[in-house]
């Protein structure tokens, strides 16, 4: 079972991501939630997760700053971050990857595409460990 963290200021999107994950064949454990990057850093101090899904546009600490903060942390930098955003521009994708995001899912997305992206990331993570 894989514990995950969803970071999004929209309760509707957090609910949808939970639901979409439950529609996949992924074995999901505890789903933690945070409304912004700062809150997410606090969650990560308390709980270990295997994948993080993060929005970009959020108050307090946005997704770009959050991903950059993770990349600076010795303990958290290995957790793969999947950006989930309505913004599918080349410029934004390149920016988030440069900051350290490992995956990018543009809305709208299906549970199938979500599963594919998570499977790819977990496979890459296990490959790195080996």
């Amino acid at each position, binding site marked *: 079972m894989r514990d995950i963290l969803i970071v999004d200021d929209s309760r*509707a999107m957090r609910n949808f991501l939970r*639901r979409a994950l439950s529609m996949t064949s992924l074995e999901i454990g505890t789903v933690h939630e945070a409304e912004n990057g700062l809150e997410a850093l606090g969650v990560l101090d308390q709980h270990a997760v295997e994948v993080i899904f993060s929005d970009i546009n959020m108050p307090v600490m946005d997704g770009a700053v959050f991903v950059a903060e993770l990349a600076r942390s010795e303990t958290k930098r290995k957790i793969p971050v999947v950006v989930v955003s*309505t913004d599918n521009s080349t410029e*934004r994708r390149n*920016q988030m990857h440069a900051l350290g995001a490992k995956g990018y899912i543009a*809305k*709208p*997305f299906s549970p199938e595409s979500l599963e594919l992206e998570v499977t790819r990331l977990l496979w890459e993570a296990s490959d790195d460990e080996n």
Partner: protein
Amino acid sequence: MTKTSLEDVLLASSTEVLETMFFADAMTPEAPQPEHTDAVACVLLCTGAQEGTFSVAIDRAALVSLSEAFYGDDGPPSAIKELELLCELTNMLAGSTLSAYAPEKYCPLSSPRLCDLAQHLKTAESTQPGAQSTTIYLDIDGGLLSVSTCLKVAA
């Protein structure tokens, strides 16, 4: 791009969002001038490479239908959750349309906020020089959805 292609992009993006995220069938209405019945509306602004306004109006019965599909088995959505969903829908439609219309540069979006139907109906009436505007209508389960935009390439 011509005004027609903005309309095409808006229509294709809206249909894809509704089908993929809300499991909703969306059809172009047969009526030449469809009208809303008991609708709620939401608006946001975009900046960056494209500047402008996006607004969405939806009949309440259609919003209830979309909410039930989006939230799934979480029980009947409250009125507050339905309005949160309208804001999220507006955000998704704007982001998806802009990413298809101007895929190279990103356009920051403001937080969506509820507005009245009259304001939504004025979105596509802009007469700004160089601006392109359009409105599309879609029939979904429960009623009518309309999406309006007015966009201008930033100087």
